[in-house]
């Protein structure tokens, strides 16, 4: 890309940023559980039934994570009794109340939408 085109590109991007798009943290399309001693066991126990995003969006205290883990074990999650406490520590350490807010991704837009035509019922 030429220098001229680069300049035009940056100007266009700056001008085309819609004011109505709120600032967000970058959203991940594919979530994985974070690194740690319990990553693999948590992946096996939890992601058999649902994706990591359901865990990653939580911001829960250790007491609440404890209830969740025990409920999920009752519902079929395979967690060795010796791993229970470490799993709770892993989840509450990574997804506790102090962690930054989670930002969810969006699905693709199916077609160009014209907002100004949306104000009438169908």
């Amino acid at each position: 890309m030429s220098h001229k085109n680069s300049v035009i590109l940056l100007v266009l991007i700056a001008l085309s940023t819609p004011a109505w798009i709120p600032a967000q943290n970058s959203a991940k399309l594919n979530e994985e559980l974070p690194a740690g001693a319990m990553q693999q066991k948590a992946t096996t126990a939890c992601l058999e039934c649902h994706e990591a995003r359901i865990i990653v969006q939580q911001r829960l205290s250790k007491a609440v994570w404890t209830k969740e883990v025990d409920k999920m074990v009752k519902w079929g999650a395979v967690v060795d009794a010796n791993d229970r406490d470490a799993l709770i520590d892993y989840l509450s350490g990574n997804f506790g109340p102090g962690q930054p807010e989670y930002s969810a991704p969006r699905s693709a837009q199916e077609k160009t939408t014209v907002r100004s035509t949306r104000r009438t019922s169908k």
Partner: protein
Amino acid sequence: MDSRRTFLKTLSGAAVGVAALAGWPAWAQTTEQSSSINLPGEDGMIVRSQRFLDLETSVEYFDSWLTPVSHFFVRNHMHEPVERNAGDWRLTVGGEVDKVSTFSLRELTQLPVHSVVNTLECAGNGRGFYRPQVPGIQWQKGAVGTARFSGPRLADILHRADVKSSGKHVMFRGLDEVPGKVPPFIRSIPIEKALDSDTLIATHMNGAPLTKHHGFPARALVPGWIGAASCKWLEEIKILESEFVGNFMSPGYRFPNQVVKPGDSVKPEDTHVVTGLNVKSVISGPLDGSSLKSGQVTVHGIAWAGEADIVKVEISIDGGSSWNPATLGREQSRYAWRLWTFSWNAKRGDYLIQSRATDSRGRAQPMEAAWNPSGYLYNAIDQVKIHVA
């Protein structure tokens, strides 16, 4: 490739990279770009979960009385049923009845059709705003939508089965694929609500057959109540002598009888089943964090109240010191939200805009929603911050 096309291609590719770096939301980009999730039939939805599917509507889409299906939130507790031939589907009606009945889809659609415009809201809509946070899908403002649902009245189906006088509750079982030892998604509603002339077995939504995500071929439609009452992929209706006992009736979908200190636990005996929706409003524009030019600004949004009617929506542009009446939209139906607008000559400055709805039962949105351990029925006064330049 000519230089212009090369430039446009470069622009497109570069824009994706810059967008990602700048933290643009994925939906602001096009389908060709790799930073949004391709979900056919779903348009720019906030993806709370893909497996199982939970999609939230972004507030800027709340600008029509009827929500297009492609923008209608999706709440799945479990995996969707595997694809099957609609011709093989059967709905059975049994329990406390004189005649156990079975309906094919064809037989169901031959019954008199009734339509209800209903605002459907997940009980957990707004859960993500409670502090301390509670477990569950962290919905914000968009697990709600309004559609015209059509299908036979549940009452007509129950009359064909001759419900016994002992039948007091109506149980719905869906075809959700249950993972592990998770309890099946079964709930019940009282017979009085089941016999209401607006309670349906819906086969259509906004004039088209239900999509798979919304419960094809048939779902319950319990108007004015939380979404969980309107069981999707319905396969069985059973008349019971008493309320169904199961996870999704207790401890699921229950609300404390008394005010709870945030973070406290509540004994099951101190709770009741969540049924009707709260009074609530949401500002759909201007969007939070937006920057506008001074002059005429129209604040707009939606307001609903379950089985009650919205009587007024008030807007504050000064952080709650004073409130001004919004104009309610003409379109209305018993269980449907009202659109509203409020126009205001905005001068330069930073503003906190708030909306507060009041319903026909005298309920008004509170400054703070009533915290509860499952994060249900969030309905605090809505607010957005904007900058006027």
